[in-house]
């Protein structure tokens, strides 16, 4: 099994509150991983520590054997990890197409100053917009889209950067059932093409149907992991969720 | 450099720090309730100083009496400013746009002062203007003592209002967690307006204190806004005690540095502190961690 995203003793405290507490996790590379846990169990903080949005206090994170602890977010992205945000974040006053073009990573001064929206980039962007199903909205301003469409746009933007591992923070949050099915189908398809997923999600039905591997967080650390069926019956998980 | 001189500078630094602390507390209030960086604070300070001077010119009464008018007036102006100007800005851009808006207010006030009172430097002459008292060998001007006393009283009053009254509790709740405050049935908009009013009232008191022992001119506010901004950044935005501590420390440092460096160069201490804070600890040394993102 190839090493994918792994953390060792990762810790982050805000003031006196320890949000992530010596978390040692290794996700299955090439699979759909789910990260679940009660509200406030530190899932989003964990995401932010791994992707460089927040500096962890101690511990390490590595991706495919390369240390990415305290690496700037854009370098984490360049290493092949893309992410979405809990409350869908897009560039509201750019068009849908521009939202995708902003994720193009040019190398060198010449490429930087070349015109944005070259034929190859636009072609690739249209491909992703078509995949998520909003290619007809290409010229619309992103803020005029519905919430569901914005979620799809965010996903297309993440994909435009061609990450091999994609971290999704609550992809089904605030989204209607039809769209949830669509996002799930997309995740399965992309996974079949070789992309790894790490998904934070509260919708258990979705988690159970979608994921190959589930990690359960409670109070900032993993308390159980394994295939969905095993985790579901784990007494520690039931206790964490139900407070038994 | 003698010990007495040093001691005298120290005392003067404390007196100056008191005024800084009062004004910085006002700035902190605006930032706390509305996430607004109020560039016009020191313009209102100078406006109050002019009103005190004008009052003294016209009536011959002590400028301190003008507080009876200026404090309520400024409070109302603050409430009005929040309601009519700040509240109109889009929430997403309120911090950035409010800087520009209050900057515009500052320019307007400066311009109007120049228009009405001309650019001439003004100074209040009082029977006790030249008087000073001996304080353990240090000669301290009486006007500076009065200014400090005024600032200290106002700060104490502000502290009591914030901690002992229902309004103060609502205000602090609004500062700490506006959504939660709303759930508790607090009308945060109203409270924000009152917070703004209180902030401007500190400028009224500060301005009168300033008029007692300073020469005033319309563009004077630029000399104040820099140090005050430095103080609230060093103090950690949104923290009243942090701002007060930073104000005292920087006031004392400025006063002590005047001995070897002269008055002009001593002012650079504020800017050095500002840049040092940003390099080392952008969230400020004494307070919240809002600084970087606000």
């Amino acid at each position, binding site marked *: 099994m190839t090493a994918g995203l792994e953390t060792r003793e990762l810790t982050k405290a805000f003031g006196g509150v320890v949000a992530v507490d010596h978390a040692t996790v290794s996700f299955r590379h090439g699979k759909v991983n789910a990260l679940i846990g009660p509200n406030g169990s530190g899932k989003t903080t964990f995401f932010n520590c791994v992707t460089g*949005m927040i500096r962890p206090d101690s511990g390490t994170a590595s991706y495919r054997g390369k240390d990415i602890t305290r690496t*700037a*977010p*854009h370098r984490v*992205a360049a290493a092949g990890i*893309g*992410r979405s*945000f809990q409350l869908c*974040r897009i*560039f*509201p*006053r*750019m068009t849908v197409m*521009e939202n995708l073009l*902003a*994720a193009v*990573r040019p190398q060198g001064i010449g490429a*930087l100053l070349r*015109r*944005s929206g070259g034929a190859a980039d636009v072609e690739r962007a249209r491909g992703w917009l078509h995949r*998520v*199903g909003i290619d*007809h*909205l290409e010229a619309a301003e992103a803020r*005029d889209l*519905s919430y569901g*469409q914005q979620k799809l746009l965010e996903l297309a933007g993440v994909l435009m950067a061609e990450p091999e591992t994609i971290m999704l923070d609550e992809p089904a949050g605030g989204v209607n059932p*039809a769209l949830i099915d669509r996002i799930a189908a997309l995740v399965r398809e992309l996974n079949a093409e070789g992309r790894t997923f790490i998904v934070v999600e509260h919708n258990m039905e979705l988690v159970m149907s979608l994921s190959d591997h589930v990690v359960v967080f409670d109070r900032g650390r993993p308390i159980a992991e394994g295939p969905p069926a095993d985790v579901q019956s784990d007494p520690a998980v039931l206790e964490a969720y139900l407070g038994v | 450099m003698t010990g007495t001189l040093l001691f005298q500078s120290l005392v003067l630094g404390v007196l100056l720090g008191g005024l800084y602390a009062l004004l910085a507390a006002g700035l902190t209030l605006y930032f706390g309730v509305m996430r607004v960086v109020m560039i016009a604070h020191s313009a209102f300070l100078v406006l109050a100083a002019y009103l005190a001077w004008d009052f003294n010119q016209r009536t011959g009464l002590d400028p301190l009496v003008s507080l009876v008018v200026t404090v309520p007036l400024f409070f109302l102006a603050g409430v009005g400013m929040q309601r009519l100007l700040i509240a109109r*800005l889009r929430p997403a851009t309120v*911090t*950035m*746009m*409010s*800087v*520009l*808006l209050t*900057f*515009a*207010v500052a*320019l307007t006030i400066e*311009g109007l002062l*120049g*228009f009405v009172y001309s650019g001439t430097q003004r100074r209040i002459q009082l029977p006790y203007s030249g008087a000073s008292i001996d304080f353990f060998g240090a000669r301290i001007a009486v006007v500076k003592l009065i200014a400090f006393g005024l600032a200290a009283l106002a700060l104490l009053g502000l502290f009591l209002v914030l901690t002992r009254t229902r309004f103060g509790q609502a205000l602090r709740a609004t500062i700490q967690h506006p959504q939660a405050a709303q759930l508790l049935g607090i009308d945060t908009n109203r409270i924000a307006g009152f917070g703004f009013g209180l902030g401007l009232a500190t400028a009224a008191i500060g301005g009168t204190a300033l008029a007692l022992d300073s020469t005033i001119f319309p563009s004077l506010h*630029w000399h104040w806004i*820099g140090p005050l*901004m430095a103080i609230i*950044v060093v103090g950690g935005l949104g923290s009243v005690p942090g701002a007060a501590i930073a104000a005292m420390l920087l006031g004392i440092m400025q006063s002590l540095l005047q001995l070897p460096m002269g008055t*002009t*160069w001593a*002012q*650079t201490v*504020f*800017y050095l502190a*500002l*840049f040092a804070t*940003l*390099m080392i600890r*952008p969230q400020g040394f004494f307070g919240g961690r809002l*600084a970087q993102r*606000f």
Partner: protein
Amino acid sequence: MRSASRWVALAVGVALVLAFPLVSPNAYILSAAVVILHYAVLSTSWNVVGGFTGYISLGHAAYFGLGAYGTALLITRAGVPSFLALGLAGLVVAVLAVPIGIAALRVRGASFVIVSIALVLILLLVFQSWREVTGGSDGLVVPRPFPELLRPQHHLVFFYLFAALLALVLLAWWTIDRSRFGMGLKAIREDEDKAQALGVPTFAYKLAAFVLSATFTALGGGMYALWFGDLDPVFQFSILIGSYMVLMALLGGVRHLFGPVLGALVVGVALEFFKQQYGDTQFHLVATGLLLGVVVLFMPDGVIPAVRGLLARRGPQQSSIREVSAAELQKERVP
């Protein structure tokens, strides 16, 4: 079609600018035109960082002053030829802007504005106090680059020099606007964290834009020094100059190539008018303050979009994208 009409409009605009000195009735009008062109250079330079990244600097007068004093001091102290001094001063400011940018760009939003104001105030302090070098409040006389020219010719030459500089800055802004670099900068303006998560090296991008903007502003300052010939810290490191740049850019519209130029034209003419009518009173301060307040409150995107919005509202109603696409959404596009 549309692009053709644009080229025509551009050609007409350029021709009008180039022909202006020929129709200008007197030296005063010409000098006022030079002032307005210099404002246009400054606010367009400001817009390289302010417009693209949304980092609003109220202290760009710092680079204006440094460019002006740098040019003047290189000429008077080191005997460097005028225009070489201008270039060198631009280079010096570019180098200085790197550490300044690294410090200032660490903070966002209002903190950044505070820092930018502090920078002007501190430089004003230094240049006033450091009399031995800068001449302090006594001012600093800059030798004219073309001593043989009479006043009207002097204005004429600088009219074209400023116009050339403006063309250069506009070209730079236009190039960035359509480039991938520009797209990254705009992403920063929209949502900096998101941009970084998508792989945009935000800090490097911001710094590059900042240094470029400071350098252009410094060139504007240096050119001003050569034209005006007399510097005083109070006017060069003036908060007011910095706020003019912001006001002009916002008024015209920071998202448009010619927005700041339009703003410079409106505000510049108004300022000249106020100075003519009201002389040395502080009325221009009041006018600037009120105008800035109106722009911030009622048209934060500038007059160009505001006017377009008005026109669109009078024209045929556009149907909402949201409604259309909600229906589209039902059509299950993903298998």
